Structures are given as C-alpha cells and as structure tokens.
C-alpha cells in the first residue's frame, strides 16, 4: 500500500482538527457531529456494497438495534451504557450471522428484497413492543459515561466522533488493501475466479455483512446517546435508502467517497433550507444530476479526471 493512499486521511484529520475553531455556533457543531457519525456508518456500508458488491437495503434496522439497546437496556434493566452498546453490537452480529447464510444464497434484486424485508421487520418490532421501546413515540436515552466522566457537551462529543471517524477511515483503508479486502473485491469482480483462487465466497459475504452490521449497530448506539432520544425512525426504510444513497453518490468502492457522500447528503438539506417548500425538489435534482454526469460517484469520477488513485 503506497503512502499516497493516506493523504486523504491526513487531510480529513487536519480538517477535523481545525473545524471547532472555524465553526461559528453550536448549530454547525451539531451538524459536524452528525456528519461524522453518518460517515462512519457509510464507511461500513460501502465495504459491503461498494467493495464486496452486495446490496443491503435494511442497514437502518441494525442501526435501530444498536440505538434501542442503548436506550432500553440501561433504562429498564439498569445495564451500564457501555455494556448495553456491546450487547447491541453482539445481538446485531449474531442476528446478521444467522440470517446471512440464507440471505446470501440470493443475488441482485432478491438480495435487495431480503435485506429490505429484514430492515422493515426490525422497524415493526421496535414500533410494536411499546412496553419496552415506547412505541412510535420513542424513548429517552441516558447519557453515556465512562469512569465517572460523562459525555455531555458538544465539544466532547465532537472530539469523540472525530477520533472515531479518523480511526474508521484508517482501518477501512488497511482492510481493503489486505488479503481479506482483496478477496472481497475479487468476489465482486469475478465470483468464480475468486473461488478457484481459494476464496470461500459465502463465508466472505457473511463476514463483511456481519462486520458492516456491527459497525451500524455501534454507531446507532453512539447516535442514540448523542441525540438523547430514540424513535423507530432510526430503523426506518427511508433511513436505509439514505445511507445507500450516500454510498452511491460519494462513490462505490471508495473510502473517501463514503466520507464525501455523508458530508453532502447530511449537509445539503440544511444548506437548501432557504428554498423552503422546494428544498426536496432541488435536493432531488442535484442527486439526479450527480448520477447522470458522475455515475460512478463523486470521488472515483474526480479521481479518474485528475488521474489520482482513490
């Protein structure tokens, strides 16, 4: 792996380090935190969709499991938030692993339908188990504390998610350029070729599905603690689609594309607020133009244009 690969990471870290001094008020601080959280989720999802070439339309479901684990377990069972987060990730991982084998016998549209169904089922469970989850109204989430230190101010949150994002970018870059990541990309490129090279294709699809689901669950917990309140909308189908859109707009199989996709799709609706009733129309138009003129996504298209690797 060349040194060049990490330039983008250094740039992201530099931007993250400077932002708190540049951002004018807490509104922007809040936006920056949401962007960073989304970026980490999208990184995990891009490993599955962009690199391994397997679609998931139910990822918000895993996010929901993590978020509700962090809300329900401390509130009703008095579990420590950190343990609750771990429990959410564990449950998500087990669920994903259990379902992945039958799901990955499917391909293309069928795989999309199966993951879509999974996401919807999780959403329905969260809505209907009102005794635990508060139903459609949602429920409050206790603050996240560790060793007597409680995360409360935006500033603290900012540094935590900035660190998480930098680490995730670094880990993703490492992963895709490792034997594991090569096998993932290879099964996307040619399943039969990777199989005869010794790659256990099903096992790799299952692994990356579980990894990206656990990523989503953990970040669901983080979001829940940050926002302080969860609703079933966390696990909603439209949220899944939003995440997939971030992957596609930023660029499939591009680590930096994931970050850029999250930045654009989280910030753009805010930036377009001045269009009032028309913001969704303008937003949709921008997305359509992006896809028409840059079908491979922003980062791969720009990288190809300026002849640099991404």
């Amino acid at each position, binding site marked *: 792996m060349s040194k060049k690969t990490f330039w983008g990471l250094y740039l992201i870290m530099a931007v993250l380090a400077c932002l708190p001094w540049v951002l004018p008020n807490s509104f922007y601080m809040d936006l920056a935190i949401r962007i960073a959280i989304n970026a980490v989720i999208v990184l995990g999802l891009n490993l599955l969709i962009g690199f391994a070439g397997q679609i998931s339309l139910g990822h918000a479901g895993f996010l929901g499991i993590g978020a509700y684990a962090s809300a329900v377990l401390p509130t009703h069972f008095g579990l420590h938030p950190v343990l609750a987060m771990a429990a959410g990730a564990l449950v998500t991982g087990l669920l994903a692993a259990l379902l992945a084998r039958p799901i990955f016998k499917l391909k293309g549209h069928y795989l999309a339908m199966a993951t879509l169904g999974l996401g919807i089922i999780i959403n329905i469970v969260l809505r209907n188990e009102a005794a635990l989850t508060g139903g459609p109204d949602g429920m409050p989430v206790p603050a996240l504390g560790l060793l007597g230190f409680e995360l409360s101010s935006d500033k603290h949150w900012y540094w935590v998610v900035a660190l998480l994002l930098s680490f995730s970018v670094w880990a993703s870059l490492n992963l895709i350029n*490792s*034997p*594991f990541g*090569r096998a993932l990309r*290879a099964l996307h490129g040619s399943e039969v070729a990777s199989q005869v090279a010794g*790659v*256990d294709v099903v096992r790799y699809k299952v692994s990356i599905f579980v990894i990206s689901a656990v990523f989503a669950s953990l970040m669901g917990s983080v979001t829940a603690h940050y926002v302080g309140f969860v609703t079933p909308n966390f696990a909603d189908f439209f949220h899944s689609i939003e995440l997939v859109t971030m992957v596609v707009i930023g660029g499939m199989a591009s680590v930096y594309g994931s970050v850029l996709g999250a930045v654009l799709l989280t910030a753009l609706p805010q930036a377009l607020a001045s269009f009032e009733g028309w913001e969704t129309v303008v937003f949709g138009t921008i997305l359509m133009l992006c896809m028409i003129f840059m079908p491979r996504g922003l980062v791969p298209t720009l990288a190809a244009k300026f002849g640099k690797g991404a």
Partner: protein
Amino acid sequence: MALLEIKDLCINFGGVKAVQNVSFSIEPGIVYAVIGPNGAGKTTLFNLITGVYIPTSGSILLDGEAIEGKAPNELARRGVARTFQNLQICMNMSALENVMLGAHLRLDRNPLKAALRWPSITRRDAELRAESADLMRFVGLEAYIEARADSMPYGALKRLEIARALALKPRILFLDEPAAGLNPKETIEVDALVRKVADSGVTVVLVEHDMKMVMNLSDRILVLDYGKKLAEGTGDEVRRNPDVIAAYLGARTSEEAPSEPVIDTPSATFPFTEPSLPAEVLLQVSGMESCYGRIKALKGINLEVRRGETVALVGANGAGKTTFLRTLSGVQPMSAGSIHFEGEDISAVRSDQRMRRGICQSPEGRQVFGPLSIEDNLRLGAYTQARAHVEEDLARVFDMFPILKEKRQLPAGTLSGGQQQMLAIGRALMGRPQMLLLDEPSMGLAPLLVQEVFNVVKRLKAQGMTILLVEQNAFAALAIADRGYVLETGLVTLTGTGEELLSNEQVQAAYLGM
C-alpha cells in the same frame, strides 16, 4: 500412483448427457491434453473436475482422495488451479492484485488484524507484492506490473490468468483454451510459457483447439466427442486413430451425428436480394475513424461493397475488425468519415434504423439469447419485419439449418458453439438483410464446424446475398470472397480480389507479425 484418477464420470443437464462414463488417469508431472470438436464436453469436464459442476455420477480421485462435489475453493486448498476459456479477471483490481489473489490461501486472512495494520500482515503483503511481480515477469507481463486489469489487451489477460493460477503454487493446473483468440505469434509464446510451467514441475491439463500446440506440448491426449471418450494415448496414437480422424474431418460413421453437416442441402434459398444487374455500390465507407477514449482504433477506413458481392475483411487480433463492424452498425460512435448505404448518407442514422434499412449483423461471439428458445431467438431477428412473411422466413431458416428445427423449443443456451453460430446467422437472416455482416463466424469452432460455417456462407453467396465477412481465419475467408481488405492497426493496408490477397506475402506478414 496417478495424481488424478477419473472413473465413469457423468453429468446430465436436463436431458442432455454432456459427459458420459468418461474414465482416465493423469500421472504427475506430465502435460495432458483434452481435445475434441466443439460441444464435445471438454469445458464441462474441466468444470466437473475443478468443482464448478457437481457430477451426476462417477468419481474423481486426487492423490487417492475422492474430491467429486467439493467446492472450487476446497480444491484450491489441495493444489488445483485453473484458467477459463472466457476470461475471469477481476476488472475492478490492478493486474498485480489479480495475481496476489492467487496466493489467497497462503496468507493470514484475519480481518481484524488487517484493519489494525498488524506488522506481520503488511510485511507478508509486501513480500507477496514482490513475488507476484516476479510471477508476472515469468509469464511475460513485465510491462503490465503497474497496470489496471481493465486497461490490458486480451492476449495479456490470458497470461494474467495463468500467473494468478501459478500464484496458488498448484500441483495440477487446468488451462482452458489458453491460446483461444490469440494470433499465431502470441500462440507460439503461450506454447513456450506452458512448456516452461510444465518444466517447473506442475502437472498441466490442457483444453485447446490449436492442434499444433497440443501435439507439441502433450505427453498424453484424451479425445472427447459428444461427451464420450473417443480415444486416449500419445499424440501419434491419437493422430492415427481412425475414429479421431472421422470426428475431426467429417466422414462421420456413428448413427447419431446430431449436428448434420449442412453441406449441399439445396432446398433453402434466400431470395431477398434480387440477383442483380452489374453491381451498383451498396455500401461506401470513406475515411471512417473511431476511438476508444484516447486510443484511435480506426484511422480512416475506405471500403466499398457492391450488391451481390462477398467481401472479406481480414486482419490479426486487435487490428480493428470488430470495431469497424460496430461502427458500421452504429453501436460504436464514429468520430470522422462517412457511410453511404444504397446511395444515402447514413452516418447519423441510429443503429436500429440502420438495421431496418437492411444491415443485419451476426455478432462476434454469437450473442444468442441463452434463456430464450431457438424459435424465439429467430423471431426476435424478425422484430422489424411484417408479420405476414415471418413464418415463411422461419421455414427457410429451418430448411437451411435442420438442427435448429429439431431443437426449436430448447433454450438457445443449450446449443453447442457451432449450433449457436448457425442460430446467430439464422437470426440475422430473419431481418431480411440487404447486406449481411458476419463477425468472426468461425471463432472458437472445431475444424469440421468451421468448414460447415464457410459452406453456409458459400450458399448464401450463391443465392446472391451481399456479405461482408470479418474473419481471423484469413485463408478460408479470402478463398470464398470476391474481394478482400487487409486491416492492420486501424488502417486498410491492402486490397484486391480474394485470390490476389491469398497469394500475397504481405497478408501472411500481417498475420504472423513478422
């Protein structure tokens, strides 16, 4: 003990017995070739042994251990590597990464350690990078070590597959048509490469149509025909075997003979083009240029076809033959020049409209609609035609290709390569062509079938069809053509009557790269 032992191997696809009761064994360290006419079951046999298909019955022993039904990745673990007839390269990765993939099983594949940049993993990866670069040099790809796989030419990708297979450190290597689609010079290089691989101690099993290469390389040869073992032995034994000679050259004695040669079945005629008066110019191409990105594939082609003529366009791989046809039919954009058809400028006419004007193409690699029935494939060819004469045309095509009539309800994907070629030509004829474009109709076919295809072309010609024939098989094409054009790296370098070109040394030079 034999390294690989096959006993009574069978597989059925639906009712088709693709491989029947085949038994043979391969001693370690030899080069073993599997040959046979198209559709004989060679690739199916490879797919059975390498775990892509599961046999219906029979056994496969590798070093005495039963391996039938095991997945390809489990076989890779036991040292079985292979390449594919139709390339299987990961185009989303670099050339070097494709080779590194071959070493997958020899690496630490833990994702957690990888994500944390564990020193042992990065160190091993750097070593592997160097090893894989060496392998690329070994197969003669030193120029492509830094290249992206999707930027490499076909011939180089064929070698890249071999390098990837070698990265597995295989005990037994299956090569499925390593020379298919290569020009004679490249074929000689691959021949030498396979020899080098065999000399390094790897047992090589080879499917190949190039008989010179097979005879030159193989210690033993297995001949398949209609899924059955026809003969086995050394090159000399096989060459002298009367059954083998019959299978290859025609003179078929067996009762079943499913693909009857269509030679001299005079019934079917295609009088769509009225046999004409002193030929008017039907197609006039001048200064045609076309580019793929920055690469100019056609650099100003001038060519004309008169009504009723058979014109051959020949040239080595990569000369631009297929690009020319694609540009002519409007699938590939033309960056300069003009095309006149029946006196009208059609440069700006969409491809579907060109087809309606009577330019019908049988594309390279046949491109039949695999899941659709043969009849539906043919009916699709008549998509632009008035319903009234579709039945009539269908009957004509069936007359011309009786095998298609016999199998009319079967999915086109179940046909062998030669039969698919007949179907592709039939489908083009259903469009009532003014001019028939044939792109590499003999590609990848066994000698007997090549002969059949050229017989079909001859008959169409005799009926007055205007034909533009693009062929790598220059000699056969020029022999039946009225006139020919020799294409070299995007330019017409020679033109003349078929006979003139046949005797021209420059034509041979264009092919052999001398």
